[in-house]
């Protein structure tokens, strides 16, 4: 094994994965091209747009600003995992109901970032929602519908707890 290609072992959406990756492969390219998990999108490739947002060891990160080799031993969750487990089912429904997406390119990253805020509990203000999603570009909706959807889910989850 050279230092240009390394063996890594990690879990992706709960499944154990062992692969040899090029050192220069970013996490999002590894997920998309190595594992065919194409829900994480590649937008700007320099950390600005947020379309590649995934969860590593429970925290959201930019999939384009981490190397796959850095995820050796990590627990990675993508939109496929968040979706299959039902963790974001209510967010997905609210996005659909409120037209919080048009082309959908930003949606996987937007859902991951929104869920990162909502899983902290409580009902964030619209300002807090906007701030938390400030690292995720949407070029279609103008954001209002997205903030509406996230706010509605926060209120519904808080209501459901009472």
């Amino acid at each position: 094994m050279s230092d240009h290609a390394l063996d890594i072992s990690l879990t992706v959406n709960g499944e154990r994965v062992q692969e040899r990756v090029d050192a220069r492969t970013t996490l999002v390219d590894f997920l998309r091209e190595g594992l065919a998990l194409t829900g994480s999108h590649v937008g700007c490739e320099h950390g600005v747009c947020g379309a590649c947002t995934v969860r590593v060891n429970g925290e959201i990160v930019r999939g384009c600003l981490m190397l796959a080799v850095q995820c050796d031993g990590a627990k990675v969750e993508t939109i496929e995992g968040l979706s299959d487990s039902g963790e974001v089912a209510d967010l997905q429904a609210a996005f659909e109901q409120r037209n919080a997406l048009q082309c959908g390119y930003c949606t996987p990253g937007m859902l991951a970032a929104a869920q990162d805020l909502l899983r902290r509990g409580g009902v964030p203000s619209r300002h807090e929602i906007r701030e938390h999603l400030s690292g995720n570009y949407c070029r279609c909706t103008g954001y209002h519908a997205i903030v509406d959807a996230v706010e509605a889910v926060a209120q519904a989850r808080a209501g459901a707890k009472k």
Partner: protein
Amino acid sequence: MKPAPFAYKKARSLDEAVALLGEKDARLLAGGQSLIATLNMRLSAPNLLIDINGLTNLDGISVKGGAVEIGALARHAQAERSDVIAKHAPLIARAMPHIGHPAIRNRGTLGGSIAFADPAAELPACLLALDGEIEATGPKGKRTIKAQDLFKGLFETALAPQEVLTAIRVPAANKDMRVGFAELARRHGDYAIVGLAASARADGKSLADVRLAYFGVGNAPVRVKKAETALASADIDAAVAALDLDPNDDVQATAKVKKHLAGVLLRRVAKQLLEAQP
């Protein structure tokens, strides 16, 4: 775009990282939130990346002998949540929410941000405003570099090629310390069009030891000593009039707009400095 090929090694110790830095075109990989972007754009094409993320004992945040010491690998999100930072380094606490976005702050490190020395970044200006220092570890051991001697120019610091920034130290706040922070960016979390980090000591109704460090207005954080002197007598208008700043045009704004915005920020920050703070 995709990065050019490079070799990758995970350093198992600080000594190993320092030794590996002696190899040709080697770069340290800390949080990677600027470095990997430049790799993707092929603005940077090192032969070897030395990943220091696994090193232990480099991410502590503690108060030691009147100073707050922050390990270089402490992540922004960690500092944002830290009670020690909130209580003893309030300027850094105020700056933290402006640094990138949550996903960026989860990875980016304080040491990386300072070593990278982006002229529009918040932390180099905070370090300068606080008269802080860094600890660098190299082949000959450790040395301390004061903030005023650290930032040499555009993305350029006094760190030697084989030195690793290992800790950041700023004076711990006391009851007379006043801090202020304000920043204008096109989108929350983006690099500043203009930003200002400041510290001072309350001295009756006026201020002493005023330190105003602007960012986004030059090749490195810039102090404005005439405005500092004017602000010491608590005269905000005089401080704005004395603003000795000569920004260049950049992709975000013209020099004229930046100069105007610098005055706007000075008024905001001056108010913060003159308010009673805990």
